[in-house]
């Protein structure tokens, strides 16, 4: 994302509104900003209120006094599930990224007859509605005794995350000049040594992109979590949050605080590594 802010020719004077049009543009953008931040405001403000202060009529008001509000209870209830999500997302992200990088390298640099067709077959897997594989998937996981376990869900996320990570790596490696590959081949390195000594070290930016993208996807997954892990103590945080919001004994301030807690890891990743995040989502639109 190279924008004018990065360019040395950009000055703050250019960024200031000059005429009526510019003020109008700013006003419209600020209006959109309020709309985009509204749900965040509602979640945080409701979460900070005490249960007795969450009345329907004062929903939009700021909390009267500052306290932990619903966050304490939300944290207590969701903490084990946050742990599950981490234990799930981190290994699944790493495995699918490494495996995807090897595939992407071969697809980009070692084309053979029919490799493009194989690539298309692989990539199609990332678009399918997962509902259409769930019944056999659950049968399979029961057969290999992985149903209802976190390793089972890790396996599932690795397998179904493989197409997108192979795709992002393939697009990345395709932009690395072939001369580098030639040079390494002349030095006597084969396909594997070229990967471990030349391509792998070069692909760190792609690892960051894929890592962030996969982590976000896996963290935010709901369908696999809710169907493969029926046991509440093993469930990821999205499923636990949904259960929390569905139970009538829980107050709204706790649910909202829970939503903030569940969203926080991916939100932080986005805030600090947003640049890579954008690259991943653009690369995910196939062409890259």
């Amino acid at each position, binding site marked *: 994302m190279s924008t004018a802010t990065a360019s040395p020719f950009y000055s703050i004077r250019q960024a200031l509104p000059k005429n009526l049009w510019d003020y109008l543009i700013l006003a419209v953008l600020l209006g959109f900003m309020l709309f985009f931040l509204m*749900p965040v405001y509602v979640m945080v403000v409701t979460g900070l209120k005490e249960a007795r202060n969450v009345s329907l009529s004062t929903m939009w008001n700021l909390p009267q006094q500052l306290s932990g509000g619903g966050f304490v209870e939300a944290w207590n209830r969701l903490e084990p599930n946050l742990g599950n999500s981490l234990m799930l997302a981190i290994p699944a992200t790493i495995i699918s990224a490494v495996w995807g990088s090897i595939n992407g390298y*071969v697809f980009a640099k070692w084309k053979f007859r029919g*490799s493009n067709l194989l690539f298309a077959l692989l990539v199609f897997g990332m678009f399918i509605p997962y509902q259409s594989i769930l019944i056999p998937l659950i049968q399979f996981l029961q057969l290999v005794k992985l149903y209802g376990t976190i390793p089972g869900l890790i396996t599932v996320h690795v397998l179904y995350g493989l197409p997108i990570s192979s795709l992002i790596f393939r697009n990345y490696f395709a932009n690395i000049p072939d001369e580098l590959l030639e040079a390494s081949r002349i030095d006597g390195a084969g396909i594997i040594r070229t990967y471990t000594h030349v391509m792998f070290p070069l692909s760190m930016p792609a690892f960051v992109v894929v890592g962030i993208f996969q982590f976000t996807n896996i963290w935010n997954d709901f369908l696999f979590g809710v169907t493969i892990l029926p046991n509440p103590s093993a469930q990821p945080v999205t499923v636990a949050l949904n259960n929390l919001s569905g139970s009538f004994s829980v107050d709204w301030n706790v649910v909202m605080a829970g939503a903030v807690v569940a969203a926080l890891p991916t939100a932080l990743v986005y805030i600090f590594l947003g640049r890579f995040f954008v690259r991943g*989502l653009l690369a995910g639109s196939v062409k890259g």
Partner: protein
Amino acid sequence: MKAKNRSQISADGSAVKAESVASLRPPAQIATRARRFRLDDALPPLILTPAMIASIIFVYAFIAITIWVSLSKWGTLRMDLNLREPFGFTYQQMFAMPRWHASLRNMFVFTTLFLIGSIFFGLLLAMLLDRKLIGHSILRNVFLFPYALSFIVTGIAWRWIFNPETGINLLFDGLGINHLITSMGGPPFKPGWTTDPSVLFSINDWLGNIFPAVKDMSIQLGIPVALIPVVIAAAWQLTGFSMAMYIAGMATISPELREAARIDGANEFQIYTNVIMPLLRPVTVSTAIILGHVSLKIFDLIFAMTGSGPGFATDVPGIFVFDQTFKATKYNLGAAASVVMLFLVSLVIVPYLWSNLRKR
């Protein structure tokens, strides 16, 4: 040995060149060379084999099994994979279900409204940010931020906002909008949002004049009121994606092109409508396909926000499959609905993949 080679060459003319080149090297080297060559040829497919086997099993074979289940008698907890008679009877049953009609209607309405909304506003935001006024990079990040959240979080937040007793209706009161309407003699604007089972712009009567069968349909063809908050929530989450696609697309348009248009006397507005927007058409196609396939599959957001809704006003195939498979344990029915979902997604995605990957 040499004599033997000779005789081969004379017998088979095509081997002449290979043999004569090979005979220039010592035999040991010939052997390793040949082996290395073959190994390097075999390695790329070999490295890809695990991924391709995984894909064939977990995607293609599983889809085939699901199709088989949808044609089977497995409609209860007890597994029965014998084919159901008459062939495809589950599909016939499903397409006679009013709930399935509602699901399909909602899917088409949702996809249409959501695509129009998120693409229009994504393009608008990208163009407004393109002026690069103060704060544009912060704003860009704010607009894309919801994309990083889970649909469950989005659904919970927006369900609270569209609670008819509080939420957005309260905001309308607070901003004096209802005061204004009632003072002009109108009824106060208090929509039931996600609790409202009614359907706007019903076209049953109009369509019934052309296709009489429509008059007997059990559902209203139109825009379910309860679906509108879901569209707003989805657009809130994914407008940033289309904005990012357009920003990336605009970055590839050379500044010289804009300058040339300016010299030709085009004003800023004309530059956008006549130069930039036509060049962004491929971006629109990609965005529409990516977001379109997301909305055909939509499940989590609706599950967290409204479920199947009042009178199935927000039921979609994703929810239908989940309910039939995991709640009603009618596995063949759930499988049949998921096969229809897959078919619809493939209609959008296969041509897209084809045109994208063929160019390479």
